[in-house]
C-alpha cells in the first residue's frame, strides 16, 4: 500500500464505515510506516477532542424571552387558516349557504302576485294579469312575479316576468330586454347572475 492511499481509509475508520476498504492491508502498512502511523494517531486524537467539545448552557431566560417575542395569535386564526388552506371550499360553502337560504325563502313564498315598478299607477291589475294599457308609457324596469303581463302600451326599460307569460302586440313596445322566467332552474340562473347585488357589502372584498 502506498502512503497516499491511506488517508481515505483513516477517515472511513473514523466514520465507522471501513467496508470495502483494505483495512487489514492498511494496518500492516502503518506497522512499518511511521509517517502514516503518526497521521492516524493524530486523527484519532482530533476525533476525540472534537467529540469532547463541551455543551454550552443556554441563557436561563431564553424561553421566557422567546415567548414574549411570539406574535399573539388571534382567536380568528383557525378560521383564517381554513380560508388560506381551502379558499375554494370556503367560497363554495358560503355561496351554497346563501343560495339555499334564498331558495328556501323563495319556495316558502305563496304564489301571490308581485309587481315591482316605479310607475304602478299606470298599470291595470285583473286577477293575476297585469296590463300596460294602450297609450300608457312605463318609465323604468318592470318585474312581475306570479302573473302574466300584457303589454298594449310601452315600457321604457327591461321587462322580467317570473312564473308567467308576456303578451305583447309587437316587440318595439319594450325599450329594454324582455325576460320570461317560469322554470326553477331558470330562476336559479337569474338569481346567480344577480347574486352580487344580494351579497351584503362586507362579503365583497372582505
Amino acid at each position, binding site marked *: 500500500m502506498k502512503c497516499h492511499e491511506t*488517508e*481515505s481509509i483513516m*477517515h472511513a475508520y*473514523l*466514520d465507522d464505515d471501513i467496508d470495502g476498504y483494505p483495512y487489514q492491508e492498511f494496518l500492516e502498512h502503518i506497522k512499518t510506516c511511521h509517517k502514516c502511523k*503518526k*497521521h492516524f*494517531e*493524530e*486523527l*484519532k*486524537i*482530533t*476525533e*476525540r*477532542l*472534537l*467529540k*469532547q*467539545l*463541551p*455543551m*454550552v*448552557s*443556554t*441563557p436561563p431566560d*431564553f*424561553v421566557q*424571552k*422567546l*415567548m414574549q*417575542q*411570539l*406574535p399573539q*395569535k388571534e382567536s380568528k*386564526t*383557525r378560521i383564517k*387558516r381554513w380560508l388560506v388552506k381551502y379558499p375554494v371550499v370556503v367560497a363554495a360553502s358560503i355561496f351554497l349557504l346563501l343560495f339555499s337560504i334564498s331558495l328556501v325563502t323563495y319556495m316558502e313564498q305563496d304564489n301571490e302576485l308581485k309587481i315591482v315598478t316605479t310607475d304602478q299607477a299606470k298599470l291595470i291589475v285583473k286577477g293575476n294579469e297585469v296590463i300596460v294599457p294602450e297609450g300608457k308609457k312605463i318609465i323604468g324596469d318592470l318585474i312581475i312575479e306570479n302573473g302574466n303581463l300584457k303589454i298594449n302600451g310601452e315600457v321604457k326599460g327591461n321587462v322580467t316576468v317570473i312564473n308567467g307569460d308576456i303578451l305583447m302586440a309587437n316587440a318595439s313596445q319594450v325599450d329594454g330586454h324582455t325576460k320570461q322566467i317560469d322554470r326553477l332552474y331558470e330562476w336559479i340562473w337569474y338569481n346567480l347572475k344577480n347574486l352580487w347585488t344580494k351579497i351584503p357589502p362586507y362579503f365583497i372584498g372582505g
Partner: protein
Amino acid sequence: MNFVDNKLIRKAKAGDMQAFAELVYQYKDKIFNLAYRMLGNTQEAEDVSQETFLRVYSNIDRYDEKYKFSTWIYKIATNLSIDRIRKRRTTYSLDDYWNEEEGLDWYTRLPNQSIGPEESIISNEEINQVHKAILNLPEKYRVIMTLRYVEDLSIKEISEIVNLPISTVKTRLLRGREYIRKEISNKYTTVDRSGKYEMS
C-alpha cells in the same frame, strides 16, 4: 421518526402554546450549541437561536411530517447561522467580531460533571484550540463539522439537512478533520503507543 415530536407539533399547529413551549425546551440547547459553535460567541448564538424558534413558530403549518422535525429545525438553524456569518463579513471587520475573551467564555459555564476522570487529561487549552479551529473553517465545512461533532448526527441526517449527497458530506468531514488535525498537531509533536500525547 419521533413520535413525541409529532404529537407536540400537531398540538402546536392547532395553536397550543404549551406544546410549542415543550418543543422549545426539547431543542433549545441543541440549537444554541449549534449556533454557538458556528458563530463563536454567545450573543449571536442567542440571536440566531431565538430567530430559529420564531421561524419554527410562524412556519409550523408548512412543516411536513414526512420528514423528521429535527432535520427541519436544524435546516433553519444552519441557514440562519450561515446568513449571519455572511452578513457579518460585509458589515464588520474581522477584528470587530473576534473577541478573544469570548472564546473562553463557554468554559466558565461548563457543568463540571460532564467530564469524567479519564477525559480530564484533555486540557482547556486543547479544547479551546479545537473550538477556534472550527471557527476558522469556511462555513460549508463548519456546518458539517458542527452537525457531526456538536449535534452528534449521522452522516445520513447531515446530508438531508444540508441537501448534499452522502459522498460530499464525507469529503467535507475529511477535509474538516484534516484541517483541525494540522492545527493541533503543530502543538503536539510526540505521540506514544497508547494514543496519549504530551505537549512539546
